[in-house]
């Protein structure tokens, strides 16, 4: 019971103990009883109000915004919010998809169906084109991925298509570098994020003023957590690409994660594919997203699974495992 390391060691044990004690007291303590789902709305609508406010500010303050659409659940939610924000008018900006060429086919099928259904404009730019033009070089080796190369194609698209605001589905709870991101994040002409020179954002006032050549990344669902996203998808009855639900697929094991087998991954001889029942909790391209073994078939199952999960969402992102600061380094280089 003293200050300093020994006291802090006690903390480690105490925290672990308290988790244990807490679980045994689970039902007895009503405040901490997270199992009651509350039959009525369990999604905090204030989040939606805030996101719509941000999207409307984006439309009002910028000349040419675009939604960065990956086909993942977060960008699907952002697109849905944009449809609501401007109703009964049309979404006043296009979707921009940076296609690595390594997408899950299910994601592309979903994208095309959604764009048609909602009457949206879709612009696709290909990482392959950046490689062909010599602007980017394919990675080699076991962990080769086009995840980092996306930045090159994105920055090129921003410059040539003259986008001044790119709206993304990143959330602050995903990753610790993202926890310090702004709603309006100013980037220079190289797309770089300067974490230490960010504008303060006070009350609800958003300052989107930029100099020529600069652009802004807009994050309307910054304050949503993974669970908020899923609850929203459930309450709004949104369609998702089928890979978010349990299905059978050839996979192989690497570094304690389950990887989807695909022609884009360099497997070693001992990495033998086998068929497993899996789903994806987060969807990037096939080279950087790991699957989870799961039989969750419905949104209810998925929400139950996430609430019980001991691993965070980005734990399945191979791109984040490169180093402790992998995300911040990518963001400095223009990643979103």
């Amino acid at each position, binding site marked *: 019971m003293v200050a300093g390391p020994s006291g802090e060691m006690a903390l480690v044990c105490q925290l672990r103990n308290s988790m244990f004690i807490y679980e045994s007291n689970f039902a007895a*303590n009503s405040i*901490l009883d997270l199992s009651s789902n509350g039959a009525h709305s369990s999604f905090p609508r204030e989040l939606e109000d805030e996101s719509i406010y941000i999207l409307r500010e984006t439309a009002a303050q910028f000349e040419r915004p675009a939604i960065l659409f990956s086909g993942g659940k977060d960008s699907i939610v952002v697109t849905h919010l944009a449809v609501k924000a401007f109703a009964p008018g049309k979404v006043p900006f296009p979707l921009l998809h940076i296609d690595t060429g390594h997408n899950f086919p299910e994601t592309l099928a979903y994208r095309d169906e959604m764009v048609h259904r909602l009457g949206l404009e879709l612009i696709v730019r290909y990482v392959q084109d950046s490689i062909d033009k010599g602007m980017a070089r394919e990675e080699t080796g076991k962990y080769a991925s086009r995840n980092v190369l996306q930045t090159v194609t994105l920055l090129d698209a921003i410059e040539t298509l003259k986008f001044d605001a790119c709206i993304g589905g990143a959330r602050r709870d995903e990753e610790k570098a993202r926890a310090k991101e702004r709603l309006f994040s100013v980037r220079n002409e190289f797309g770089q994020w300067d974490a230490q020179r960010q504008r303060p954002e*006070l*009350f609800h006032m958003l300052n989107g003023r930029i100099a020529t050549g600069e652009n802004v990344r807009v994050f309307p669902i910054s304050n949503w957590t993974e669970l908020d996203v899923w609850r929203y998808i459930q309450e709004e009855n949104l369609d998702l690409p089928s890979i978010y639900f349990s299905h059978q697929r050839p996979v192989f094991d690497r570094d304690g994660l389950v990887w989807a087998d695909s022609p884009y991954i360099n497997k070693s001889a001992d990495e033998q594919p086998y068929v497993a029942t899996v789903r994806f909790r987060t969807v990037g391209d096939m080279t950087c997203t790991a699957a989870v073994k799961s039989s969750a078939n419905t949104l209810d199952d998925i929400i139950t699974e996430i609430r019980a999960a001991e691993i965070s969402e980005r734990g399945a992102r191979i791109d984040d495992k490169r180093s402790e600061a992998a995300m*911040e380094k990518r963001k400095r280089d223009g990643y979103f």
Partner: protein
Amino acid sequence: MDILHIATAGSVDDGKSTLIGRLLYETRSVTKDKLEAIQQASKRRGVDFLDLSLLTDGLIAEREQGITIDVAHVYFNTANRKYIIADTPGHFEYTRNMVTGASRVAVSIILIDARNGIVEQTARHYFIASLLRIPKVIVCINKMDLVGYSQTRFDEIVADFKKLAGDYAENQALHFIPASSLYGYNITQRAEAFHWYSGPTLLELLENTEIQHLRKQAARFQVQMVIRPRLLQNAGDQHPQSEALHDYRGYAGRIGSGSLAVGDQVCVLPNQQLSTITQIERLGQAQPVAYAGESVTIQLADDIDIRRGSLLAHPDTKPIARTQLNARLCWLDHQALNVGKTYILQHGVHSVRAKVAQIHGIVDVVSQQLNEGPPTIKLNEIGDVTLRISPAIFADRYAENTANGTFILIDEWSNNTVGVGFVS
């Protein structure tokens, strides 16, 4: 489900990150892989304890220097509520960060180390919480385990704090909790050690906090944009809008304070024209009333000149036009305030020009005295000023309307947000 926004401030030494860690653990909001990452990072940094600041100190520079640079956002849930904590660093650009982090919260948690009692930083915390008129302040007297859970010590600190708060405490709900975040006492669970304390735990206090304070203020609605479907169609549109929407005109925005209902007569500023609300849509659904915080689209009975920045209010409680106003100004930029220079003043979504006509003095945040005579206001200083504005803005006094009584100043050369003001 609603959201409670909370601000915490302070340094690692007063147990703040341990306290936040407690809330996260005990509401099961930290996952195993994040915990393991912290354990590994703690080891790499050569410390043999679990450094919970690593949960939020995500930037390379923060980890290298072992300091918190920026406001971090932390999320947790109970069955009733979602919580968002804006956690601000204790020393680095203190005022700027704390004002930013606390700018929209309903609760401020001020931590006091029971061994040290009230220190200069406590006074700063409380000053900023009062400047921002945060409705509820919870003073968490922590590390009680290190003073033998002494009720006498707790009572002493409470008395000292009440002296510091003075008359201001009458406008604010002030609560005191004796706690040990190390052992988790009075954070979410009670303990025998505090048999003399019968009040709520920290989490109970948070769960019972009323968060509708903005609804009680006069109605303010700023138009973000005018939705006219006929003009919003994309080029090459394959899905033309129906003729029914040809004359549709909706005013999109977020209710800043109070409430507006269908049938209400409203005054549209700056033109002072009157009209009646015929429809309110929130997120695609018609509803009879809209409350503070809701993003809605409003339709009026009359076709009048309304554009981005127009303000709707009830005629009897509308704000006055101001071309000159007094404000308390907190400076946020390395480049000090330049008296005589024209800044962009952004009031909500509405931008005008402003000049500082006079600096009345700088506030000493510890003694709360006004020091007269300085020629400028520097980073992290708070001063009282008179501004001249063109065109007029329809702002309220911050004391009367926290949503419509603030503004930011923007430097038009750097485009940076350089100051935040509270109309007095």
